[in-house]
């Protein structure tokens, strides 16, 4: 097993590389997905393959099927996966991070046993938090849950639920006490997506992907035992969900930017691309490449701080969020310009391995908005880090 070697970094890397070299020969790895359906299939394949070698949920506690893998070990996996140009596990972000973080702290023993083990078998969860009028201001959720015997009856609408069209379960934030102050009347549920009254409508993004769904809930009956944490205290549960450690995901995403640039440069050399003769474009490339490298260093620093539970982690996080999302967009824009008119044609690709510069660019724009918009990051830097007074 690869994970047996985790204490010897060189051996661990060696085993990962060997496995990756083999798996990357598979058709699924060589032929990137051409549409949303293929992406979904591809993700399930990738999770299955990782699971075969114990890399499905390695960072989980042993009792729930994980290997208690340290963050350091996770970093090595991310480094090797990206170096191999292997896919991400993007479709499983909620399943792998938000679900365990939430259930470990707030779940009943039954909930943990029932819901955690299937994740490594490919169960997809989605998150039903945001609503059309509750985005950054999440505590404004209006989706209503009313107790009716041993069920709650839920009505409302959720938005920005990634991969909800493929999800089997949903973590759902609802209002159970409309008269309480807004943070005090919220309850948190686990919802089966097959329950009658749940309708998912895909929400197309600027990059052409249907990654998000809108979830419409009409008289959806959720059993009482599916509540997580006490009634009306769902806000605290949601805070746990949202603060689940997933720095490793941004780390992995940013590692890919390095390879994207190096691969683009190599391909440009190969094709003797015109931009290589343009001094200004070369300077711009170098500046971006240097900033990407600086950011890779910052992200390592952030992960080290997280490992060491250092308070500087909180200080660095919002800067890193801004820097890496801005850089991805700038790199995408650069690649688009450097590729000239040909880049206007859709090559597409439906995952992070796409070589379509416009796809890269458009996808990157989402990063500045998602996960706390960069405007929110600026507020945090000014108010929490620099102690500037609220307006």
């Amino acid at each position, binding site marked *: 097993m690869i994970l047996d070697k985790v204490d010897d970094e060189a051996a661990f890397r060696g085993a990962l590389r060997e496995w990756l070299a083999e798996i990357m020969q598979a058709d699924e790895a060589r032929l990137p997905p051409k549409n949303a359906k293929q992406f979904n299939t591809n993700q399930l394949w990738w999770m299955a393959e990782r699971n075969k070698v114990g890399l499905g949920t390695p960072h989980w506690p042993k009792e729930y099927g994980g290997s208690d893998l340290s963050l350091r070990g996770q970093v090595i996996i991310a480094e090797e996966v990206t170096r191999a140009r292997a896919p991400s596990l993007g479709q499983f972000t909620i399943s792998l991070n938000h679900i365990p973080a939430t259930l470990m702290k707030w779940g009943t023993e039954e909930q943990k046993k029932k819901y955690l083990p299937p994740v490594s078998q490919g169960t997809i969860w989605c998150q039903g938090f945001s609503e059309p009028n509750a985005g950054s201001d999440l505590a404004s959720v209006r989706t209503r849950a009313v107790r009716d015997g041993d069920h709650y009856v839920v009505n409302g609408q959720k938005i920005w639920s990634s991969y909800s069209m493929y999800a089997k379960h949903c973590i759902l934030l609802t209002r159970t006490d409309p008269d309480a102050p807004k943070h005090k009347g919220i309850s948190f549920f686990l919802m089966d997506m097959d329950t009658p009254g749940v309708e998912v409508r895909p*929400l197309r993004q600027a990059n052409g992907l249907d990654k998000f769904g809108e979830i419409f809930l009409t008289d959806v009956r959720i059993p009482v035992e599916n509540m997580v944490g006490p009634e009306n205290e769902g806000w605290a549960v949601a805070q746990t969900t949202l603060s689940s450690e997933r720095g490793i995901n941004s780390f992995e995403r940013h590692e890919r930017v390095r390879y994207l640039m190096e691969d683009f440069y190599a391909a440009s050399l190969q094709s003797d691309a015109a931009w290589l003769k343009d001094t200004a474009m070369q300077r711009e490339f170098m500046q971006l490449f240097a900033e990407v490298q600086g950011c890779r260093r910052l992200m390592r620093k952030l992960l080290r701080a997280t490992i060491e539970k250092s308070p500087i982690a909180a200080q660095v996080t919002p800067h890193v969020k801004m820097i890496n999302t801005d850089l991805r967009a700038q790199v995408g824009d650069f690649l688009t310009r450097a590729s000239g*008119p040909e880049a206007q044609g*859709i090559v597409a690709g439906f995952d992070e391995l796409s070589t379509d510069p416009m796809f890269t660019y458009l996808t990157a724009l989402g990063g500045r908005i998602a996960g706390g918009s960069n405007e929110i990051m600026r507020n945090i830097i000014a108010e929490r880090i620099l102690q500037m007074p609220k307006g």
Partner: protein
Amino acid sequence: MSEDTLEEDLMALSEGIDSALAEMCEARIVHTYFDGGNELDETLWQCAAELGWLGIGLPEEYDGLGLGAPGLDLLFRALGSFMAPGAFIPTLSAAQWLAESAAPEVCQTLLPEVVAGACTFAVPLVPGTAPLQLEGSGLSGRPPLMLGSRSATTAIVAIEQAGKPGYAIVPLAAATASFTPTEIWDSTRMAGKYEFSGASPLAVVDDADGAATACLRRWLALATAADCVGGARAITFKTVDYLKERSQFGRSLASLQALKHRIAGLLTRVIQDEALLDQAVASLAGSEPSADMWMNMAKASAGDMFAAVAEDCVQLHGGVGFTWEFDCHIYLKRALFNREIAASSSVLRDLAASQFALSARSGASTAELAL
């Protein structure tokens, strides 16, 4: 004064264009077209023919309205503002180019057809690159990506004939020209690749001195730059409206100072590029020797500006700015496509720099202005 008359004509026309577009290109209709759900490009084209828009810049002898560069500027700002689809950029640019570069009998044949809506063009996205060889057997080969559509009737193709550069005006017949559309990110426009096999040009325009290339670039640049400033102004104002509609944490988004300052900055950039385009259009209308320099700069600047403005408007819309349903992505994709039309911003600035150096070396100024 004739300039005042022109201005009055333009004002009157402008209102007509805006109200027609407001109806025909209402945002939902454009979105449906973007997704392949209607034929807005064709209905709009018919309307444009009926209202005389297709001849707005052409001389009256070819059934045009004779409004030249100022007329085209006005029309394309409006089309850009409403995300209007269709072959306006290639066709109207090619028509102006013909009027200046081709023999009168060619113009007489084609231009009234353009005005009537019966002749549409496919033109090189970037004029002056990769010519085809024109030989006795006709025109064969594949030119680089062309702006145009499956229904284009005529192509303008860069050629070399006996070692001399020029352009062929080629009627598009199924037998000698096959078209493969390129699926592009900006679905309001059409582009694709032609393969010619022994096509017979209607006429050939000589380009020994590069004047024909410069002329085609100029009109493409004008149309595109105007589309850019029109689009950038529109999406900025739509973003202001959106911010006014939405609130968060109990406050109108439009009341947040950081967003207000950004919006003010965007509008200022738009106004700056509108003024630069005014400069280019005026110098073109006045046939000043520096007209091409200004047009190259206006297009480069407007293209970069529109892309930057549209990108920031995505961000200012938050989550919905990133969806297919809102307008932001269409403006952004038009902006990125526009950036490539005529030539990249870098190439255009390099051309302008050479033109500037030439005037400066000769001791002339390119910056004279009347009050």
